[in-house]
């Protein structure tokens, strides 16, 4: 069905365009920063992100590939591999990434100054990170995936440390050191996978793993070992227990707008990568699923109970991000068809609600430590709009209909259940109760009348943030009432058979 041109002709460059658009933004912010004010750059970048988004939509269903390479296999038939593929999954996940990025930029317009990070380098780093994220989503082989991941991670380290404060630096160092270890594990895993399959390209790996040709059966040991190491490496980036411990510290230490970015875009990108590797290249490899389910279960339990114990709202959201990783990972356990669809739907919803919630925190916090849950008391009577919006986000995070979070959870449960992980879905159901409790407490406190003086920043409500919040809330509500708006695009099982490019 998909037309796959070869070589690096201009036509194929179309596949590269979305990435190039963001890269352009990054370069411009790097260079123009010396002459142009940072706000202008931000507007410019938002514009470029939109352009990139539009270009993605134009690429829909064309399955363009770039940097293709054709050669003959042992059995004589020709195989075309691509380093970069703009197939539908890539586009869908790319769009999700862009949504998160746009919201980040919007929020940063208002809060960057208060966080003392409002200089062009911030935008540059952000755009580089987005470029890396898109590279991951579009990646066609492990090396591109790795480079994209590294671009994103390095910019992430910088962003986390960018603010001139002890907390930020602490979080930055923690993020960096552990991140470096994580990447090392990942690379080592890639080496093993390469060793077992003799290739770094997804489609080739998938071919070798799927069929015995080229893969000596006794090398399964190395293959699965590699798969598990790759899993561990990714597990660090998406914060699966026990690789999650950096998350709360980094998210609560970094400026809120950056935590927003890290907890949405970065996570989405890494999940995109995992989708490529595990539902695509290594879909037929044994072993990793059984490990992943254990990690998922642990994440569900630890993440939810830990969040239950938090008193700082920002930190609680960090833990809730961990918990949500568990729910998202459940989707990975499904078959590519159901799992991919579920994951993509849930990722968009997750981005919208998390971003909106953190945007409100960023707007209303007095210091970058965020606000304690107790501070939220009576918020409804001081900032009704934001309070209601936050309440909706929390309800959606808790998975209460009619908000989209419910369908996200539902799809994740379904994916796991239908692939035979019944116990996992039951466990998820039970842990969701804990989740409800910690979302409920702040959510309800906001509506409880309060006579003490306000403890949040009074001038937080500004158009850009409000726009971001509105985007999130509207999206969550709309997708909750009419899930088909998004699920209709992702649900086609055909597109998920091509994660590995063939």
């Amino acid at each position, binding site marked *: 069905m998909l037309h796959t041109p070869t070589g690096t002709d201009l036509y194929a460059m179309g596949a590269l365009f979305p990435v190039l658009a963001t890269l352009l933004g990054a370069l411009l912010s790097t260079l123009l920063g010396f002459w142009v004010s940072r706000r202008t750059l931000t507007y410019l970048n938002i514009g470029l992100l939109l352009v990139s988004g539009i270009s993605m939509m134009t690429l829909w269903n064309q399955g363009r590939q770039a940097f293709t390479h054709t050669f003959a296999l042992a059995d004589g038939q020709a195989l075309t591999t691509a380093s970069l593929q703009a197939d539908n999954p890539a586009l869908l996940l790319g769009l999700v990434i862009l949504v998160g990025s746009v919201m980040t930029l919007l929020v940063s317009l208002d809060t960057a100054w208060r966080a003392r990070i409002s200089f062009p380098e911030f935008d540059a780093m952000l755009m580089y990170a987005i470029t890396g994220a898109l590279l991951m989503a579009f990646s066609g082989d492990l090396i591109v995936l790795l480079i994209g991941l590294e671009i994103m991670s390095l910019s992430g380290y910088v962003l986390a440390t960018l603010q001139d404060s002890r907390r930020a630096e602490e979080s930055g160092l923690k993020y960096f050191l552990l991140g470096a270890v994580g990447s090392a594990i990942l690379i080592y895993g890639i080496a093993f996978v390469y060793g077992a399959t003799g290739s770094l390209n997804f489609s080739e790996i998938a071919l070798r793993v799927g069929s015995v040709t080229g893969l000596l059966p006794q090398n399964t040991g190395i293959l699965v070992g590699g798969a598990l190491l790759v899993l561990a490496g990714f597990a660090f980036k998406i914060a699966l227990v026990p690789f999650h411990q950096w998350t709360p510290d980094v998210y609560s230490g970094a400026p809120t707008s950056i935590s927003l970015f890290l907890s949405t875009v970065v996570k989405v990108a890494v999940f995109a990568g995992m989708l490529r590797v595990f539902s695509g290249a290594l879909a037929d490899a044994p072993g990793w699923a059984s490990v992943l389910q254990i990690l998922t279960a642990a994440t569900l339990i630890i993440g939810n109970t830990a969040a239950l114990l938090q008193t700082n709202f920002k930190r609680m959201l960090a833990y809730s991000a961990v918990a949500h990783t568990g729910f998202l990972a459940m989707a990975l356990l499904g078959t590519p068809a159901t799992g991919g669809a579920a994951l993509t739907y849930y990722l968009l919803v997750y981005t919208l609600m998390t971003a909106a919630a953190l945007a409100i925190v960023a707007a209303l916090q007095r210091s970058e430590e965020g606000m304690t849950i107790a501070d939220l008391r009576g918020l409804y009577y001081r900032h009704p709009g934001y309070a209601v919006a936050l309440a909706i986000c929390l309800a959606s995070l808790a998975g209460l209909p009619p908000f989209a979070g*419910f369908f996200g959870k*539902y799809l994740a*449960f379904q994916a796991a259940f239908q692939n035979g992980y019944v116990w996992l879905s039951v466990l998820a159901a039970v842990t969701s109760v804990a989740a409800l409790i910690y979302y*409920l407490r702040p959510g*309800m406190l906001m509506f*409880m009348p309060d006579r003490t003086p306000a403890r949040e920043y009074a001038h937080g409500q500004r158009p850009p943030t409000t726009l971001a919040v509105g985007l999130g809330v509207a999206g969550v509500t709309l997708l909750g009432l009419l899930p*088909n708006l998004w699920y209709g695009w992702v649900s086609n099982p055909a597109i998920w058979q091509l994660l590995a490019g063939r």
Partner: protein
Amino acid sequence: MSRDVIRLLPTFMIFLPMLGSLILLVTPKRWRDEMAGLLSALTLGLGLMIWRAGGSGMLDVNWVPALGITYATELSGVSLALAMVTAFMSFIAVLYAARRIPNPGTMLALILAMETGLLGIFAARDMVLFYVFFEDALLPSLLMLAIYGKANRMRALVKFAAYTLFGSLLMLVSIIGIKYLGGSPTFALADLRAHVLPAGRTQTWLYVAFLTAMAVKLPLWPLHAWLPDFHEQNHDSGIPDVMGTLYKVGGYGVFTFGITLFPDASLELRPILMGLAAFTALYAAWIAFHQQDWKRLLAYAGLSHMGFVALGVFSLNETAVIGAMYLLAFQNLYTGALFLAVGMLQERTGSIQVRVGGVMTQAGALGGLTLALWLASIAVPGMAGFVGEFSILLGAYQVYPWLAFLAGITTIAAAAYALTAFQHTFWQARPPGGIPVHDLVHTEWLILALPLAVAIFFGLYSAPALNLMQPAVKAVLAALGGN
């Protein structure tokens, strides 16, 4: 009216209140009460229209085709009766809120929002849709508790929400299970019914998961612990309690979805479930005897009623199931009205403790109506409660006499706790220096008398409701292949 229009009526009826609650936000303060009253009255009117048409047909629209989730609604038979009662009591609640709460905009909006959820629960004929409405009703009730609750409301909130969600999430898993394992194309009740699972462990376990949700919302011992705190911590006016009472839809859920989708399992588990139900009834009544706080007392009284409902539904005996639905529908009237009466009492004496004493010497009407409502609540014949309880016990007796006996003892205990509490509050002499209590005024009359009147009417002349319920119950039990 053409069938198609009637088919749409439930949808209007469901979403009119939600629309109303949104309208209220933009209505000028002076008109909010009238607006809310008008809207809830309109909703009730729509219900009457459906009733006159003898129930709406099934409206079945694809909602999420990719997932086989449909928007299937129908109000007829049992669901119609319940919806009518819901609309009616919401109307009453609106009336009292408008009178009692200063600047009631928020409360009115929440009442209407919750009404939407409740009506949706009754109208839904699709498992996921049912689940969605089931949870929708949760949010407004939580908000009511949060905004208007008492000092310890946070605990009550968490308990309430946690219990509810614990149940409903397991239900979600079970929903996924019955569709997937049963191989039904959609979640629409009709399709699911056509693809019922074969009898066996799987069906039983899925039923248990489904039941957890219903048992929380019945509620059924031991999943009832949220109930007393919920009522105790809610606003003194008792308005949220009315809505909370309406929210006890577990019996309906078991009847509409449980029995039809898990026939063998429900037969298999019948003794256990009936035992639990009977125990709940007695247990609650017994505890109620010891309560010093009217709200807690009423909570346990309601729990006891729900024990009866459960006994009836689980017995799978036609008479008993009819009785259960009858009780489920009409206990809302007097239980709700009693909560409001307590609200009025609190407004006058400033306390909801049962040991006030001699209120009736000064507020005869309040005392008299409360007493009448109590008598209705302990199923004195001639009131709607009796028709339900009597049928339930009679039916249950045909299945398991001893369990029926256990539950029967409740009727005695009920008399004990009801009259004791009433006596300590309204009878005996008014202590010297107590606040002088003024009698009912303005609309308060209607607020208590209307539900009572309806309860008496349906206690004596039950045909209208029976004609709605009996065929529906017959149909469901026929699917079960008799008992």
